[in-house]
């Protein structure tokens, strides 16, 4: 019913507008085409000026309403993010000035130089001096922007420090999975043909002994240590995904077959962010920024940034993927009484099933 009303109102509005438009043509004939045209010209010139003023008020109002919702320039939660915020600020200032000047000139000229019988158009086909000026000035402004941009870009994309913690992020429709190297600090080799949804979700090659202590995390947040550089090694199993970390201002595609990396240093713990944003439920979110299929919009992950101690406590609760898959080989298994070991291997199953169920 509502739809019907909306359609009816639109149709009616349309009909009325059309009748007015048609009538205006007849009116113009009666009043004299030239006179009518001149009056329309005045109205439109005036409207252009009004549009400029309302537009500028609109820009201000829009900013008032929405500026609180964006990520403030300078509030980034990583060192690289601060560089990006600074670049945003520089660019905003330069483009903002140009925007204001050119839009004002455009609409003001339109109003000021509207058709008038008293004035003749000024024949002004070219002027080399002017043209040189407005080639050189934009060129200088852009040199500044390119200069800062490239310096920051190389700093952000340069090599990660040696002590950076390596974490592997793998995207698949429509979830994120993480792998932490164990005590050896090395991620073991993997090969996609070894992938087994139940026992080996990443396709780790067990003959590579560095794989034995790698920790696999799925279905829970990624943990990072504050003020410790982290290097993400990013991959995907099926289609291209993208690790988007808007609070850190970082982003990198996850491409099947071609691993990518990015590194940064988180500078604010989740707890700090809760205080800073005044939001007790604040979480760092991982968004998928490259369209990856029908669940793209729901491919959400979380990150917890915490102190070293908290991180270590969390890590201690984790068991390597190898011993989860092959509990019999676990040298520490004697610690666990046999019935519990059985329970452990059956616990692996519901987890795996939950994953396949997730996948759809």
């Amino acid at each position, binding site marked *: 019913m509502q739809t019907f009303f909306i359609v009816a109102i*639109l149709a009616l509005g*349309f009909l009325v507008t*059309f009748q007015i*438009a048609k009538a205006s*043509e007849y009116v113009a004939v009666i009043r004299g085409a030239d006179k009518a045209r001149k009056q*329309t010209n005045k109205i*439109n*010139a005036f409207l252009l000026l009004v549009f400029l003023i309302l*537009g500028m008020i609109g820009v201000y109002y829009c900013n008032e309403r*929405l500026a609180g919702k*964006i990520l403030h320039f300078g509030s980034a939660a990583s060192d690289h993010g601060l*560089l*990006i915020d600074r*670049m*945003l600020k520089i*660019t905003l200032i330069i483009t903002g000035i140009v*925007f204001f000047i*050119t839009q004002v000139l455009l609409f003001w*000229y339109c109003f000021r*130089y509207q*058709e*008038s019988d008293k004035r003749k*158009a000024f*024949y*002004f*086909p*070219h002027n080399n001096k002017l*043209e040189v000026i407005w080639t050189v000035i*934009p060129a200088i402004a852009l040199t500044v*922007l*390119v200069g*800062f*941009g*490239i310096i*920051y*870009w190389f700093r952000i994309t340069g090599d990660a420090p040696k002590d950076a913690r390596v974490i592997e992020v793998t995207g*698949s429709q429509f979830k994120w999975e993480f792998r932490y190297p164990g005590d050896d600090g090395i991620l073991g080799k993997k090969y*996609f043909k070894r*992938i087994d949804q139940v026992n080996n979700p990443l*396709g780790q090659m067990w003959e590579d002994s560095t794989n034995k202590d790698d920790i696999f995390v799925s279905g829970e947040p990624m943990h990072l240590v504050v003020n410790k550089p982290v290097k993400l090694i990013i991959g995907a*199993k099926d*289609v291209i995904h993208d690790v988007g970390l*808007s609070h850190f*201002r*970082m*982003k990198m595609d996850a*491409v*099947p*077959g*071609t691993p990518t990396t990015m590194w940064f240093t988180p500078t604010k713990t989740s707890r700090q962010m809760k205080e800073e944003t005044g939001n007790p*439920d604040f*979480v760092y979110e991982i*968004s998928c*920024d*490259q369209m*990856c*299929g*029908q669940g793209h*919009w729901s491919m959400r992950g979380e990150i917890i940034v915490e102190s070293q101690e908290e991180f270590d406590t969390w890590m201690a609760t984790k068991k390597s993927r190898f011993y989860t898959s092959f509990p019999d080989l676990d040298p520490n298994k004697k610690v666990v009484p046999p019935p519990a070991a059985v329970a452990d291997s059956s616990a692996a199953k519901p987890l795996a099933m939950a994953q396949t169920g997730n*996948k759809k």
Partner: protein
Amino acid sequence: MHAHPGVEVGHDVHHDDHHGHHHQSFISKYVFSMDHKTIGKQFLVTGIIWAIVGGLFSVLFRLQLGFPGQSFPILETFFGHWAKGGTIHPEFYYALITMHGTVLVFFVLTAGLSGTFANILIPLQIGARDMASPFLNMLSYWFFFMASIVMLSSLFIQTGPASGGWTMYPPLSALHDASSGSKAGADMWLISMALFVVSSLLGGLNYISTILNMRTKGMSMTRMPLTIWAMFFTAVLGVLSFPVLLSGAILLLFDRNLGTSFFLSDIVVNGNILPNEGGSAILFQHLFWFLGHPEVYIILLPAMGMVSEILSVNSRKPIFGYMAMLGSLFAIAILAFLVWAHHMFVTGLNPFLGSVFVLLTLLIAVPSAIKVFNWLTTLWRGNIRFTPATLFAIGFVSLFISGGLTGIWLGNSTIDIHLHDTMFVVAHFHIVMGVASFFGMFAGVYHWYPKMFGRYLNSTLGYIHFWVTIAGAYLIFWPMHYEGLAGMPRRYLDKSIWQSFNQFADLDKMITIVSIVVFAVQLMFVFNFFYSIFKGRKVTTTNPWGANTLEWTTPINPGHGNWTGEIPEVHRWPYDYGKDGREFIPQTEPISASESKH
């Protein structure tokens, strides 16, 4: 290089035919026509139909974005299982955005814009009786028509049309199991695109050879109107870049159906381990954007050309800095080929390569700035008549400034890391490429409608059309930048599960409502367009706008062959407005001894 005498003779013969053209049947006159004007109108009408379809797609997915989860039973009535319970199924949503992009970028703003105005204006403005090859020209339209039919039928197959985004990145678009749209829909998309490339090549080659070889006597290259220059560079861009898309599309078809691994490697989809190894998914992006970026200028340059012409005619002043306008068109055309990887800053591109692309990308801002300042100076101290065409041209300049400046943000790789694939990008390219080019197209339609149909469009409806559209465009796309600055990714159909993005729910609602209003006003324009063909106010003079260019020296309703007598000779550039106190001096008027030099 003046008009080729041999060609002229041939065309005079053609022209004699025209006197006895009553033997032409309806089919050869309106369907398989070889008259460039009719072909142009065919492109325009097909483009308008596609614009309605593509616009409707956007209204549908805006409903989902503005009112996520709300049921609109009418949707189920029309779309069945795609909108069960009146809400849009995710797969349907992705099909809608994919088709919206494809249709608008290729079928409306490439074929509908270049196809229309290059066809109608090139022969008329350079003084030729028709295109270099009217037959290829006809084929160009019919290949476009076939591409349209294939794309349109893909909407009705059971698994739905392609839904991998208008960029069709593999592996998503290559794997039948990755999404429903990657089944038959993707093959049809690729085939349709291959046909489309053929159409655009036939058209482009024709435009180039016509401009180079068939100018009338006295029409040197630097006496051509800027519209023609813009069409020329557009055609060159298309001819050089579209074949690359074709190669990408064919390789992708191979990967999809013949088991090759050009773009596929290390893939486990739906639990199946695929045998493909050694391909590169990123390679497709290089092939795609090698067309994709010039494509942006293929869309934009014709609009720029027409805007230059319309601003000059209606401010009764010469275009300021003709040679600079020409030089900047040239610079943009060259740079268009050297910036494609700025769409790929976060694909793991080599950072050094990235920095080169930053430099080249931001360089485009220089010729763009020159154009803007020259348009402003063209208006300065003019005597401006605000026809609907003028208003749309002014709107184009305003949008080009707004959207161009955000290009400086995104072209800078440092900022792009944060804003890549967010709503900021959507806002940016809709303003600068989408809406601005539409404004150029509208300006062209309002301005040359009298030439096309011998009647005027209703100007009151034209004014309403302009004011609602420009206000709506800014209301829709300006606030969208803020969503992007909050990191909100593109192509999310429901933000309610996201803490960071759900705060924009009200804004999305507002945008949806405005976009419905704007869409309704476009329908009014379409009505005005078709109504005025039959019932519009009749044109009574050959040169209603007091313009200098050659198309206004033809009869009000030019037949096939354009001029009834000899093709006029050209003696001057097309922008002598307000010279020596005369309002305008047509190109056909010889230069008198007493005339001042410029």
